[in-house]
Every structure is written in C-alpha cells, then in structure tokens.
C-alpha cells in the first residue's frame, strides 16, 4: 500500500535512533564509557523508572494517566519498613502490595466506573497517599540499619550483586518489562486495554467491560509502583516517607511518552518505554561522565520530551 519515505522511517524509529545516537556519541567522546561501573549505575538508577513506567504504559494506553505512582512508592516503602520488624520481610512486602492495589483499585473505580478525570483522581490520591506514607513513618526517615536482621535482608534487595557483578535490580527490570510486554502483546486483557484506549465507544459496543479494564490497569500501575518503592528504599537503605518516589511519576510519564505510546490512548509500546527510560538515563549519564552539571541534563531532558511529543503528534495526523 503506502511506501514509507525516509522522513517517515525516521519518525517511526525516532526513539531508537536517538538512543543509538546517544550511545554512539558517548562511545566516541566519553573516555571509559563502556565500563562495568557505568552499566551497573544505569541498571540501579533506571529500576524505579522502568517499574513505574511499565504500569504507566498500560494506564496511558487506556487514555488515562496516573500521577500517584510516586506517592504509592513511598507508601509501599514505608509500610514494608514499618511492618517487617514485627512480621518478617515477606509478609510486610505482601501487605505493602495489597495496600497499593487497593489504592489503584480506588483510582480505577473512580476513572472507569464513575468516569471522573484520571488526572484529578490520581492527583487527590497523590496527596492523600503521600500523607499516609508520612503519617506511617511519623515524618522520620526509617533507617534499615536500625531494624536489625530484617533490615539487612531488605537492604540486600538493593545492594546484592549477582555473580558479584550484576546488580540485583536487573531482575525486577527484566521481569516487569517481560510481564507487561506479554500482557500487552499476547493476552486478551492487553488487547482489550489497547482497544479501550484507541476508541472507547467502539470497544464498549464490542462487548468489552471497560470499567473492569480500567480498574485492572490502575491496580497494576499501583502494584508496580509498590515494587519500585520497595526496591528504591532498599537501594538507599532508607524508607523516607517524604522523599521516596518524589517526581517519579514525571520520569515515568516522560519515558512512556518518549517511547511512543500515545497520550490519547491506543497502542502500548512497552519496548518504547524501556527505550525512553534508557534515553533519559543516558542523558544523565552523559552529563555525569563529561563533568557537565546534572542541571543541564535536566534541561536537555525537558527539550527532548517536547520534541518527542511533537513528533508523535505529527505522526498521528
């Protein structure tokens, strides 16, 4: 049918191209770019973004948004840290996950059944959940080294290196990406999610239970955010109710948007989100390695975000 000319090809693979360009530039200009330390840094730092980003990909592909993920991260981290001295690590984690899913369920219910705006609902939750997290930790950061054995256990989730070389965060990253990719591409739910985002009315008329789909999606977003929070807290060995997950939603949204999932809903580009997260991370890394202050990185990220959205808009016209 239609042949793609050069410009269209660039637009389609823009994010991958950008990533490759960044890697290439670094390979050439940055001394000792490809060392293990860097790779490890990338993996540990990108973990929360990818985890939240996975949930966010599905949410955005239904045409919604979830700005409460940062707060959910805090809630999960704090809840785990608070409960685990009494209950042990795994039950505490389970509780945290449950709490997160309840929050997500509430969001999904309000968006899917009551048809309220996603931004407002998740805004309210963002405030309330962050507050809850801070109440639970009494406004004081919870230090793991004061929690004895159980604290060490959790801290291991942040610092363990597989084979002494690869950070443990690689596991949740790969798992999350794989799970969400499979869901989006291979499952009935995934197809229904993308249909609802692409055309709500047609999907409803095709018999899809749109309310239930939304609830599930927001639950998943919160679920992954909870894990992100726990792993992040583990990494720094502190559960800080006030700062854990701060601005995490923004990073996640940026990754999803750069990755190509349309904000109006539709096709979920899971791999795109991973690439988006990598691009953001590469920018930071490039600046760090070349002694450029991180603030420039931030400005650059902003410009790239605008650019990515703009190209996406052109693509969809």
């Amino acid at each position, binding site marked *: 049918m239609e042949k793609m000319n050069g410009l269209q090809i660039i637009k389609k693979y823009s994010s991958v191209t950008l990533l490759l360009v960044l890697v290439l530039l670094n390979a050439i200009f940055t001394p000792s770019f490809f060392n293990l330390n860097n790779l490890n840094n990338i993996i540990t730092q990108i973990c929360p973004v990818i985890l939240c980003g996975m949930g966010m990909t599905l949410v955005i592909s239904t045409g919604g948004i979830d700005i409460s993920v940062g707060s959910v991260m805090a809630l999960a981290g704090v809840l785990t840290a608070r409960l685990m001295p009494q209950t042990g690590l795994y039950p505490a984690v389970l509780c945290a996950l449950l709490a997160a899913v309840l929050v997500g369920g509430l969001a999904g219910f309000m968006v899917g059944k009551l048809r309220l705006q996603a931004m407002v609902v998740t805004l*309210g939750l963002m405030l309330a959940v962050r*507050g809850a997290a801070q109440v639970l930790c009494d406004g004081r950061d919870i230090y793991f080294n004061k929690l004895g054995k159980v604290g060490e256990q959790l801290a291991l989730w942040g610092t363990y290196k597989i084979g002494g070389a690869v950070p443990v965060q690689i596991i949740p990253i790969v798992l999350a990406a794989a799970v969400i990719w499979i869901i989006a591409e291979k499952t009935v739910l995934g197809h229904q999610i993308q249909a609802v985002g692409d055309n709500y009315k047609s999907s409803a008329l095709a018999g899809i239970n749109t309310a239930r789909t939304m609830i599930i999606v927001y639950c998943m977003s919160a679920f992954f955010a909870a894990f992100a929070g726990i792993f992040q807290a583990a990494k720094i060995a502190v559960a800080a109710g006030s700062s854990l997950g701060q601005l995490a939603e923004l990073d996640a949204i940026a990754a999803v948007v750069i990755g190509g999932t349309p904000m109006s809903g539709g096709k979920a580009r899971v791999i795109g989100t991973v690439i988006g997260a990598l691009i953001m991370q590469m920018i930071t890394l490039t600046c760090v390695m070349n002694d450029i202050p991180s603030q420039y990185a931030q400005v650059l990220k902003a410009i790239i975000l*605008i650019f990515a959205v703009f190209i996406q808009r052109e693509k969809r016209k």
Partner: protein
Amino acid sequence: MKIAKKIYHSFYSKSTILAFLLLIITSGIIFADRNFMSVANIFNILLKASKNGGYIALGMTFVILCGEIDLSAGAVLAISGVVMGLVGQVNPYLGIAAGLLTGVITGMLIGLMVTKMRISSWIASLAMLFALRGMISIIAKKSVTVSGSAMTFANAKVLKGWLPGMNSGISIMIPLFFLLVFICMYIGRYTKFGMNIYAVGGNGEAARMMGINTDRTKIIAFIASGFLAAFSGVLLASSSGSATLSAGNTYETYAIAMCAIGGIKLSGGVGKFSGTFFGILIYFIINTIFTYLPTSISVHWQSIVMGLLVLISVGVQTEVFGKVKFKKIREQTD
C-alpha cells in the same frame, strides 16, 4: 428525588463557602481555649496563604478555567526569586522587573507550545518544570541573597495600631494578597478577557465560532499564571531576604487542590476566583489546625485530608447538564 436534586444543586455552588464556614466555626469552638479565632491567628493564616502558594492558586485558576494546566508554577516561583536576586545585585528595580519578566516568558512559552505545537499542557508545563528546576541550579549554586528596597517593602508593616490586638500592624503582604485577589476577581467578571476564558474553557469550538481568538486567550492565561507565580517568588525572596533554589516545591500540586476544592472544574469553564480564594483559605486553615493539634497526631494527616477533599470535590463535580452535548460542528454529518 428531583426536588432533592434541585436543592442539592443550588447548594453545591455555595458548598465551598459552606464548607469554609463550617470549618471556621468548628475549629473556633474546638480550639477556643487557644485563641484560634483571635485576630492574630487569622492574620497569621492569611500571611501564610500569601507566602506559600496563594498566588499560584490564583494563577492556576486562569489556566484551569481555560481547560488547561500549569505544572511549572512552583518552579517559576523559585527561578524568579533567583533571577531577581542575581539581577538585583546590579540594580534592585531591574531585578524585580527581571524576576517578573521570567514568569511572563515561561508562561508565554508554555502557551505557545500548547496552542501552536498542539502539545498537551500537561506535557508542556511538565517539561518546563524539568527545564526550570535544572536551570535554577545552573544559574545559581546556592541561595541568592536579596537586599535593598525590595526587602524593606516586602517586610513592611501597615495599618499600625488600627486593629485590635495588632498594634504593630500587619504585614503588607496581606493587603497585597487581597488586592490581587480582587484584581483577579475583577478580571474574571468584568473584562473581555475574563469572559473569553470561560467561553474557551466551556466549549472551545463554540468560542471560536463566536469570534473569540482561543489561542490568544490561552496564551494570555498562561502568561497570567506565570506572572503570578513570579510575583509570588519575588515577594517571597524579598521578604525572607534570600531566594532559595528549592522554593515552591510541590506548590503547584496543592494549588490545583485548592482550585478543585474551591469549585473550579478541572475540565474548564466553571468556577469563580472567589471560589479559589476560599479554597486557599480552607487549605491554610487546615494547615494551621494541624499546628494546634497535639503533636501525637502527625502533621502529615494534612495531606491525607487534602487528598480526600480533592477526591470528594471532584466526585461531586459531575456533569450538571447531562443530556446536552456540545460536539464539534465539523463532526456533524448529514
């Protein structure tokens, strides 16, 4: 059932005021022993409002009424203070102008991105937030000191001896805040720009059909938001004598909450500036109440309460005019 609905609707628009009054009365009673209702406390609340995000909520109202959002307000607050401090070292008046100009420019940029590049205001203002927070640290390594006449002005006290129990007068910030609230209310009700905002937010396509330049209206709204955030930043830096780099952090979130509670519909077209004013007051009253509570109750319950208030007010903001649909003409078929 219909009668119940009617009563409910007529109360709804006044519900913010009702909630506010209820709040005042209840807390007045509960904390009567600690002078909650004292003049000093009232002005304390107002002072906090004027320093910590009241202006941002006002600016946010312009943007939300148009159906958009401005997530960069807090960052604008911070960077205008810094700019003012830096330029102020050359000339204090130039510094103030530069600070305010920063807000105008950022607002205009966001407005252009939204209208001309057709980027959602969430993304555009989010990107601006990123960029500004980054730029703040680029242009200044640590807090910038502010000195000079701006500082004296901001710390001035007026109405000395006029008010019972406030012999040394109240901070000038308070009447200044009221002034701006009234200006915004005036704009909203008595200017063409104000009418246009409501039209654009209510039904953008209709507004365009009636000859309103929707793009220009939105851009001006963003400029207003940026300006007010900058105004706030300049005042804050002046009054405290230094412009901190992390000022205004998360202020925009609370500003949106204040608007939502104040009855500003987040989809646009509905809500009054007076509502925002009450939303602002409600927040800061809750804030103050928490300082009165025994320290065993964490101050952070505040956020929970605010969050729940947002959820409730948006849950209540359901479509009042259900059946009537206002689709775009172009989608109409034969």
